[in-house]
């Protein structure tokens, strides 16, 4: 029983109660059941899990109910339950993935430091883009 009040228009209404993956602007990935939406793409996620990916490994941290402000949403993907069990990725414990993540962040930070210094030596800098929502 699918009613579309405005045919051709993107709507999240049919996605309600389905399992979704949400990419946030800060780089985090949330997975949960979509329970509520509004015109700003504010979301309510149920039985949410924060999934951390490092290389081919991933770990899930249970987070309960999440209310996500729309401006932080990059994308919302419907999880295909069949494809989900077919993944080449390896699930590990929370402790392990957090450690892997820490190591990855450290390597990135060091590489970034070198880059910033190299630019600075040439009289250049990268401006920070702290984005504001336009709506």
């Amino acid at each position, binding site marked *: 029983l699918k009613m579309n009040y405005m045919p051709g*228009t993107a709507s*999240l209404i049919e996605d309600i109660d389905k399992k979704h993956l949400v990419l946030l602007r800060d780089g985090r*990935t949330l997975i949960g059941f979509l329970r509520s939406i509004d015109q700003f793409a504010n979301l309510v996620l149920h039985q949410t899990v924060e999934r951390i990916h490092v290389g081919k490994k991933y770990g899930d941290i249970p987070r309960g109910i999440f209310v996500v402000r729309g401006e932080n949403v990059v994308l919302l993907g419907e999880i295909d339950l069949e*494809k989900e069990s077919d993944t080449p990725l390896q699930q590990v414990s929370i402790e392990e993935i957090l450690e892997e993540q820490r190591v990855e962040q450290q390597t990135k930070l060091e590489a970034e430091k070198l880059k910033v210094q190299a630019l600075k030596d040439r009289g250049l800098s990268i401006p920070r883009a702290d984005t504001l929502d336009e709506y």
Partner: protein
Amino acid sequence: MVGTVTSQGGALGSAGDSDGWVEELFYSFFKSLVGKDVVVELKNDLSICGTLHSVDQYLNIKLTDISVTDPEKYPHMLSVKNCFIRGSVVRYVQLPADEVDTQLLQDAARKEALQQKQ
């Protein structure tokens, strides 16, 4: 269950009106491309290829049968077939040239510009 849903945007102004409502040229343009294959490049540098399913007045985009075009350093998208992309995070929408009637688009843009002047 928690949930209030308001219909997208209340009163949708008719396209190209001179009553001061927001320009709908690109909304109409994207509506004409529903069903075509596009590549959406996001501000976080992620590029997603898929079929344009629908678009709304905020230029939010729904794609079906997606694939991440760049090398799969984004493993989390493997089990996702359809997605909703918030309009505000889109940097580019890439389309094949033969899907676009540039003449029509130019004429529509000129009309829109004239009406906005009034």
